[in-house]
């Protein structure tokens, strides 16, 4: 089946299968697109929306409580205890103090102040003793929620990857895909924070603070607002550069991951050919590049942060200077009269400290927002890489009105099928033949002639460009892919086994099969005897790439796997290439018996296999050159006869030099 790729040259038919994410192109996102990207992710919060709502509510509640508490405590600690201003009647009452000593005096006495401080301490202890643990627990809740979201995204990505055609996988690296599934998708965990919590709370707080400051002195409020324009300009300067930097960093790191993976896959050859040094040099180049890109991106981010601080810091200093002078001169507050109730009328030390606190808080929000914005660029790039993948349309999808494929009664037909990968090189043309139930059809031909592509069409790994592939007269495009693949089973040419037990490998396509069924299938495939001889029999664990078994054993396992599925149509791609003649014969006999009610297609070179077929289809250069039974074709004196003769006459002895 991997011969399909035989006919895949570069220059794919459908551009969406091009290599992903090679990004020397510049930044494609703009501010608007970043926002829209984030919005798109909101959909990912759907499954957990009630949790998010609960979380946000809880945060808001605690936030409000803390805010109120801070305001009250500030007043108590600073203005009353430290400065000594008299209390309001209400406060005195709630603290249980006699108004005579607390309200009607000019300044509070030492004992009263101490008293207030201690009581305030209890209040603080109480509130923070509740708020901090609650905050931590809420945070844990948030972690759980976000992990769920991340999990969904990871699984979606993996499913998408596995449904994309082989053309995609030929062009794209496993390591890069791994990076997207793990690293890039993790950015989705920032959604709640970055899209909601941080901006909403920060902006609300900011507005609230500005309003309070207006009451103090509108100039100060204006100063605070004036931090925005330069910060925004700075942000505009950096945003695009940051995105480009982050994209390079991600791609370089994904590339490094891919490099490691590829080296390990081919490590045997690398070692055998003494190419370790070469690989080491290339690895170090990739690693350096990964670090260099990360360096420049992060250095930019750090600079952005420092410069932002300079902006808000300058505003803070100017405001401090003004406020100091205001206080020194004991100027009246703008809203002096209306705030007289709260005891705030004139600039004094208490207000001065309050102002510093509030203004500082305001600049904090600005810093927070811009710092978040800087990080958001990285988040956006990560998510963009995720969507690049999710947006790819798998080539083969179920038609909206697709039906389930019924058990096969009559057989399969290729009706004038044509298929091409590139516009100028057809792979298959005018393919027409039939294979009925209860027959064995051998598909023969030179390598690269299109045999395996033909089989791929039957499995609907691709759809034909013209003509149709039919089972029982039903065009395959009209049936669901799942139902089709449950009725067609295949033993591949490159025998792939997974790092699981023998039993699990055989059961791969049919996880619910019973042990007896597994054994029965193994017997048909002539695999049972050697499996039983393994250290733990069917429960022996196979290494990655099934390396502990010989090729012949792997092949038989592969066939057992296909047999177990019990599908109506069985495709064997070079089933006996690694088997010796004796085993081959036994296998073919078993298959003949097992396949009596089924349709079997064999792609093969081996004469012994071909001979027993009911019908032989010879494919050459993408078309059906000849077809018929063995005897017919031998008499016909065409390609088939040539192939057969070639196999069994001795090659002429090489002439000595």
């Amino acid at each position, binding site marked *: 089946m991997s*011969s399909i*790729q035989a*006919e895949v*040259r*570069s220059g794919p038919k459908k551009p969406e299968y091009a290599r992903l994410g090679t990004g020397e192109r510049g930044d494609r996102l703009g501010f608007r697109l970043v926002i829209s990207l984030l919005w798109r992710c909101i959909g990912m919060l759907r499954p957990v929306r009630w949790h998010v709502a609960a979380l946000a509510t809880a945060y808001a509640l605690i936030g409000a409580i803390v805010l109120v508490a801070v305001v009250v405590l500030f007043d108590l600690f600073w203005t009353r205890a430290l400065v000594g201003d008299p209390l309001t009647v209400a406060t005195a009452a709630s603290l249980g103090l006699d108004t005579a000593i607390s309200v009607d005096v000019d300044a509070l006495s*030492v004992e009263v102040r101490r008293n207030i*401080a201690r009581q305030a301490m209890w209040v603080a202890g109480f509130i923070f003793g509740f708020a*901090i*643990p609650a905050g931590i627990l809420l945070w*844990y809740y948030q972690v759980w929620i976000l992990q769920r979201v991340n999990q969904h995204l990871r*699984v979606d990505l*993996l499913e998408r990857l*596995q449904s994309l055609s082989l053309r995609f996988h030929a062009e794209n690296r496993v390591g890069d895909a*791994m990076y997207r599934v*793990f*690293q890039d998708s993790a*950015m989705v965990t920032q959604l709640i924070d970055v899209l909601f919590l941080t901006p909403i709370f920060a902006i609300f707080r900011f507005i609230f603070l500005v309003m309070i400051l207006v009451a103090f002195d509108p100039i100060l409020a204006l100063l605070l607002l004036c931090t925005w324009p330069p910060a925004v300009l700075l942000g505009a300067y950096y945003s695009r550069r940051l995105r480009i930097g982050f994209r390079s960093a991600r791609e370089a790191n994904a590339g490094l*991951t891919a490099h490691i993976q590829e080296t390990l896959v081919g*490590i045997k050859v*690398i*070692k*055998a*050919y003494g190419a370790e040094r070469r690989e*080491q040099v290339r690895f*170090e180049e990739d690693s350096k590049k990964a*670090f260099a890109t990360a360096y420049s991106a992060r*250095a930019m981010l*750090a*600079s952005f942060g*420092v410069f932002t601080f300079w902006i808000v*810091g300058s505003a*803070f*200093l*100017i405001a401090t*200077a003004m406020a*100091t002078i205001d206080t020194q001169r004991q100027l009246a507050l703008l809203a002096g009269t209306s705030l007289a109730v709260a005891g705030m009328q004139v600039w004094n*030390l208490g207000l001065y400290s309050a102002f510093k606190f509030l203004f500082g808080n305001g600049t904090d929000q600005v810093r927070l927002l811009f710092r978040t914005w800087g990080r958001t660029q*990285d*988040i956006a790039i990560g998510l963009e890489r995720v969507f690049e993948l999710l947006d790819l349309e798998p080539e083969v999808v179920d038609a909206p009105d697709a039906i389930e494929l019924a058990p096969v009664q009559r057989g399969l037909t290729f009706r004038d099928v044509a298929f091409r990968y590139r516009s100028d090189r057809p792979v298959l043309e005018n393919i027409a033949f039939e294979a009925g139930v209860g027959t064995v059809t051998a598909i023969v*031909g*030179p*390598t690269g002639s299109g045999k395996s592509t033909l089989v791929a069409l039957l499995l609907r*790994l691709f759809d034909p460009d013209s003509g149709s592939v039919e089972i029982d007269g039903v065009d395959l495009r009209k049936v669901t892919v799942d139902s089709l693949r449950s009725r067609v089973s295949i033993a*591949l040419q490159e025998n792939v086994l997974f790092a699981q037990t023998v039993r699990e490998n055989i059961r791969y*396509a049919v*996880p619910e099969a019973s042990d007896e069924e597994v054994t029965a299938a193994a017997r048909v495939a002539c695999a049972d005897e050697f499996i039983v001889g393994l250290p733990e029999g069917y429960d022996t664990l196979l*290494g*990655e790439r099934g390396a*502990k*078994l*010989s090729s012949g054993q792997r092949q038989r396992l592969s066939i057992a796997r296909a047999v177990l599925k019990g599908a109506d149509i069985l495709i064997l791609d070079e089933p006996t*290439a690694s088997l010796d003649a004796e085993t081959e014969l036994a296998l073919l006999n078993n298959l003949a018996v097992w396949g009596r009610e089924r349709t079997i297609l064999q792609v093969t070179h081996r004469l012994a296999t071909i001979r027993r077929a009911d019908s032989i289809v010879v494919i050459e250069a993408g078309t059906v050159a000849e077809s018929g039974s063995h005897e017919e074709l031998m008499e016909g004196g065409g390609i088939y006869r*040539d*192939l057969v*003769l*070639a196999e*069994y006459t*001795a*090659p002429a*002895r090489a002439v000595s030099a």
Partner: protein
Amino acid sequence: MSGTTPKEIETRESIALLARALRYVEPFRWRFIGKLLIGFVSLAPMVLIPWPAKILVDQAIEGIPFGDSLTPLPFFIEPLVAHLYGATPVEVVFWCVGIQAILMVLVGAIGTSGRENDQAEAYLSSGHDTATRTENEANAGFSMAGGILGLFDFRWTLRLTQDLNHHYRSRLFERIQALPMVSFDDERIGDAVYRVMYDTPSITNGVYRILLTPILAVAMIFVTSAVIQAVFGEHPVLVWSALSMLPLSFIATTPFAAAMRRRSIASRSAGAESTSTVEEGLSNVLAVQSLGGQAREAKRFDKDSWDSFSEYRSVVRAVIFAVFAAMIPALALYGYAFLYAIDLVIEGSISRGDFLLLLSYYGIIFASAIEIGALWFRVQSTTAGLQRVFFLMDLPGETDADDATDTDEIRKSIRLQNVSFAFADGTLAVDRVDLEARVGEVTALVGPAGAGKTTLAHLLCGYLTPSSGEVLLDDVPLSRFTNESLRRQIAFVFQETALFDDSIADNLRLGAPDATEAEMEAATALSGASEFIEALPQRYDTPLGRSGSKLSVGQKQRLSIARALIRPSSVLILDEPTSALDSKTERDLARTIEEVGQEKLVLVIAHRLSTIRNASQILFVDDGRIIERGSHDELVSRMNGAYRRYFELQSQGAV
């Protein structure tokens, strides 16, 4: 190779791991010292910074004349005070704010509280799993200061971190490549990738936590206490209460250290496991799709991934418990100090400006003390990573014997003398075999599947070491030669073709970096690959795609053979070279093999007899033993010979 990560690491072992990490970092010590120096320098302004604010409050606003300050001014403030003596409030403001502005630009700080203080950093968002957090660790840049100094410090630190991490990732990669060939059969590739990418940063992270952070924290404490002492000398209670946070946080967090360690190990293992699952599924996409295994793979991944998330959450829980434990004494202590300071103000011992100052400094000491106290707890997450890295690094690589020499061309033969080989699980693959493959001849190994032919070939090359018996190269034991020189003499075509995501030319040159175009063309002509290569628009520059997936199996095979032919080696070994080729191509190849066999030592393993008919020596292998040997004609003429039976079965059906 990777084995399993143990579930537990003893305390003693984790200390040893950290010590080892420290040793590893030793070559970089000067840059560490540089970082420390910068850190110390950035401390100085910390001490200076609160004073302008205090002067603003006390002098400018409250109008307290300088001489009447309640608390003594530190020496470094005196010049400023002297200058400002008798100045108007506006002038005082101007000067103080001016100084703050300069400090802001230089070190990014206006005051000592968090909001008035910037620290240059570039932490990117990470997810809630170990691997993504490690990305930040691998690129850790941090500074205690902001402004220009902070940026400089940041870049210095980031460079240091990256250089360290690059160094250790490369070393680990090198180690992995140096492992014996057999280790790679059982391997989970994703796990290895995880170790190289996400476990190696534990080295720098561990060292920073043990070395940098505490030293800087101690310096911070020292400096701040000194200032407090100088200014508030009559109130040592404050200093001692802040310092007592150190033992308290230690006591509170250390009981959770073992749990933290366990959880971190579990988290990393689970993360690596899920990586392996994905890698396996994606590498074998063809099989997964054809077999309809998508749902199954998705389900498997779903479980593995959620497992890794759960393990991470358990790490978070351990942290939360420790935080709760430490919080109680922390809040109590801070509250106590707070009240104490308020009392001081109420009494009139210190001014309100001093109060703010005091609180700031107190907070600094407080935080630093917690950092040091909780150190042991926090460093546990890195020991897990360290264990995984060092385990891999310590695996025995291929080594040459001490007296190994380089071998030249092999001129005579390679011989197996009474060689047996058993796999690690005890199965005997080769049983007391004697065979000799000679230069200038084609030797063929034939036999049923699983007979041990491939194992024999691997033994001949030295990829495997015999359990008993000897392998002799030109009558000299193989073990006397260096691996590298030995491999240079051998060109092996494996059964599973492995091509790389490079151009055809690069692939061909894997074993012969200096091959010319003419040599490439000659090799591909011999192997039958040149016709399809010439048909490609980019010819030899055509990129092959992942694992050469753009070619058919037959084309890959022919390319692998060409790759072997190009290599100027004296030995050529082909393992099932023709299994995917049609008869005509196969015949051509058989002829090529014979030609090459005139000059080199050629060993062919095949099922298809047409490939080996003209071999000088055919060895029929079954069950790990050589049953018959001779030329084709000799063997075929034996009545009831194993080879003869085999041959007859194959040609059944010939015309």
